[in-house]
């Protein structure tokens, strides 16, 4: 059936609420407004205000309330409107959700799912365009998911809710309108590893979320030039699926990491380090990265486009690798 990423998530939420009395959705504008990105449109009418719970603008308050409700036996889905606003809930996410199980010596686990929009590309300037999922991927105790396909948008929520520990799901803002075919019986998908979205033998593009489609487009362009490109969709940003990454790089002997996040102290840096640690002698070229420019994302279209990884940047990075140069450095 034809559907959208937005609709796939909505169906996943519906199914979770129908299946389990403990599940409810809570966040800013999830009810009467229908969700900032219209993900939860119609759910208030279907499930009522107890289970589709509008909250005040209190990111720390309602995220912490989600943690408390999880401790109290519920299975909350907390929606934070965007990763930018999640900074107001960092205390709860990092100091409590990620920490309580270990700090309590296993006494209390936190079965909480937090969903949030991430990424740039909509000309909404710096405070609405950040890609900070890499920050969260730094924190032990969290599982970080980044659905980039309709299957994952539909299938990741169920297993995330079944996880006894906190799971953060990052939905790239440009994906909500993505249309495509999804099987009628699409169901849960594993949330423990990466997926190879395209096989190839000359170079591995390693990416996730909103950059996956750009990597796929770059692969098609490169193929026209006779370059065989493998594309890895990380899907799970923590814990990273080292095995899939290293095996792929061992086959292709070249890697380019594409991430909207800034390169300094980043997820892309981490992946690069792991490749160095685990596949250094398999490499024919240094690992390359295509990342967000190290500026707060600007409003003007041409500047924003320049600030975010684009297909042409990926193609150029691969070209440089194959010709012996590198696109690395800078910033």
């Amino acid at each position: 059936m034809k559907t959208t990423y937005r609709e796939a998530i909505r169906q996943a939420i519906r199914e979770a609420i129908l299946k389990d009395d403990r599940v409810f959705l809570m966040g800013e504008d999830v009810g009467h407004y229908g969700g900032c990105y219209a993900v939860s449109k119609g759910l208030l009418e279907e499930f009522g205000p107890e289970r589709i719970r509008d909250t005040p603008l209190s990111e720390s308050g309602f995220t912490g309330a989600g943690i408390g409700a999880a401790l109290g036996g519920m299975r909350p889905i907390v929606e934070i409107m965007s990763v930018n606003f999640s900074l107001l809930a960092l205390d709860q996410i990092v100091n409590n959700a990620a920490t309580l199980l270990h700090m309590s010596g296993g006494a209390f686990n936190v079965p909480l799912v937090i969903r949030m929009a991430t990424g740039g590309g909509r000309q909404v300037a710096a405070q609405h365009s950040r890609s900070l999922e890499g920050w969260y991927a730094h924190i032990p105790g969290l599982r970080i998911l980044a659905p980039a396909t309709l299957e994952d948008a539909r299938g990741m929520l169920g297993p995330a809710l079944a996880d006894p520990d906190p799971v953060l799901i990052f939905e790239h803002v440009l994906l909500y309108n993505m249309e495509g075919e999804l099987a009628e019986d699409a169901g849960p998908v594993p949330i423990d590893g990466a997926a190879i979205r395209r096989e190839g033998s000359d170079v591995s593009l390693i990416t996730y979320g909103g950059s996956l489609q750009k990597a796929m487009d770059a692969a098609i362009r490169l193929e026209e030039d006779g370059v065989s490109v493998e594309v890895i969709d990380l899907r799970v940003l923590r814990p990273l699926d080292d095995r899939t990454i290293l095996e792929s790089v061992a086959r292709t002997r070249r890697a380019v990491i594409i991430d909207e996040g800034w390169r300094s102290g980043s997820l892309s840096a981490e992946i690069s380090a792991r490749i160095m640690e685990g596949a250094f002698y398999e490499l024919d070229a240094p690992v390359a990265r295509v990342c967000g420019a190290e500026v707060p994302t600007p409003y003007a279209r041409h500047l924003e486009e320049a600030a975010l990884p684009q297909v042409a940047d990926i193609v150029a990075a691969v070209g440089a690798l194959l010709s012996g140069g590198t696109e690395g450095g800078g910033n």
Partner: protein
Amino acid sequence: MLLVRRFEEKCAELYTQEKIRGFLHLYIGEEAVGVGSVRALAPGDPIVATYREHGQALVRGVPPGEVMAEMYGMQEGCARGRGGSMHLFHAATRFYGGNAIVGGGLPIAVGLALAARMKGEDQVTACYFGDGAVAEGEFHESMNLAALWNLPVLFCCENNLYAMGTAIAISHAETDIALRATAYGMPAWAVDGMDVLAVEEATRKAVESIRGGGGPHFLEFRTYRFRPHSMFDPELYRSREEVQQWKERDPIPRFFERLKGAGMLDEKGLAGVEKEVAATVAEAVAFAEAGTLEPVSELTRFVHSEEVGA
């Protein structure tokens, strides 16, 4: 109260012997608050406390040996030695910590209350925090959420007049904390936190009202810590005279005088209680001393749950 007092005096001693390390925040002087309020709760009522929570933990029924072993960093501790003094946790008694981020426990208490409500259970969540937390955004977010959703939370502000070393008068524009709570439309009372009976009575009244559907209530317990903020505090911010004045209101002798006046306890009886308490503290120390260290190979246990689907 005597158990909490003697237990903590022992903690201070053990700290100087370096048996207990890290931060140690003593409750000495404030015992009437924890004792009176926790005793007014039902056994299944969840408790969320602060890093100065030994009192609440002991009164709630976390075994003293497990509390002491936790401070010793032993795996027999109530958090397997991963939390220490500031992070006591105990699932069996629904004791949810031990939060060392000022204000960080309030949203969790709101969530526990939300869960109870959604599950149709009648528990009241008791949430402890100090006057310092009242300046935090999380305090106001939580007050608003609890009142907005009419949740069964009892907010227990332990106003000991200092946020670490900053006096309430130089950190709050309005120092009448109970008054500020009323701005959220919830019943709020200021209570003499040096009087265990007053604390118990006020808490009982509030809990009864909350359990009857009255929504969140707020109690400001006016109290004082006799000891420094932590073991590192040189106490430059308050005078000896001030501390001495408050010590004259020590809740323990005060309660003893009440009991004595009512013919319920005399010096001999008190000596008996002291003896009993001393035995409990000694047992707790012995339990901790006999504790074992968790093998380092288990360092990464409990980052994620071991039973998926739990």
